């Protein structure tokens, strides 16, 4: 970008407002929002799992099939993987200094996260809808 001689704008001009990446504080803010969601959902999930310690297969399925549990489980999956991607992104940006490796990793974690959310959500729905 800075090598582009045709761009006569001062670098400060590009950095103002939403910043040079044009995403503003979106990353920071989403990380905090998912964090707040995960305080509630994480504690709820631990309690749910502890309650199922001695339950058999049918008990576990029945618990997941309850509408509220199914909804909260899907919310937990989405916010958990979203939060994980945002966190891992910062770690990768900090420590991976070869550009192509950095970009590859950033894309790979997003693919894995989306597939996991879809697989987990489908599993919850299959149980909840009795498939």
């Amino acid at each position, binding site marked *: 970008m800075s090598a582009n001689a045709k761009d006569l704008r001062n670098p400060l001009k590009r950095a103002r407002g939403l910043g040079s990446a044009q995403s503003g504080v979106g990353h920071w803010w989403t990380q905090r929002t998912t964090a707040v969601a995960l305080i509630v959902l994480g504690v709820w999930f631990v309690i749910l799992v502890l309650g199922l310690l001695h339950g058999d297969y049918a008990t576990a399925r029945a618990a997941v099939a309850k509408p509220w549990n199914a909804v909260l489980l899907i919310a937990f999956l989405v916010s958990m993987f979203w939060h994980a991607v945002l966190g891992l992104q910062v770690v990768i940006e900090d420590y991976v200094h070869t550009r192509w490796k950095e970009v590859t990793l950033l894309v790979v974690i997003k693919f894995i996260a989306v597939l996991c959310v879809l697989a987990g959500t489908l*599993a919850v729905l299959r149980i909840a809808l009795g498939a």
Partner: protein
Amino acid sequence: MAETQRPLSPHLQIYKWQVQMVTSILHRATGIALSVGTLIVVWGLVSLAAGEDAFHQFKICMGSPLGMILMIGWTWSLFYHLCNGIRHLVQDAGAGYAIAQFVRSSWLTVIGSLVLTLIVWGYVLSAGGAA
């Protein structure tokens, strides 16, 4: 990656260790560990949806000695990241920045996460083990 040769900050080993350094590093480390742990959550849900045999297999893996050690590690990682995450949210709101408060809240997170892990695993083991 950077075109300009920016000055580097001094490397970590020249600093005297302080609890705030430990809590900061552990937040990252537990975050990475929990990102891996998300895959176990999805595995559990998918196996629960797949059928009794698949879920039985999942429970055997998690109940094995290695599985138990990993689960204890993830339990502590979760509670640590939870406690320190709340601490960070408080700091994001602008509170708790005096050095004495900073050190106290650091110790509070470390001790709080260990106590919560002990409570959960005390319950699990006294109730006759996992799975």
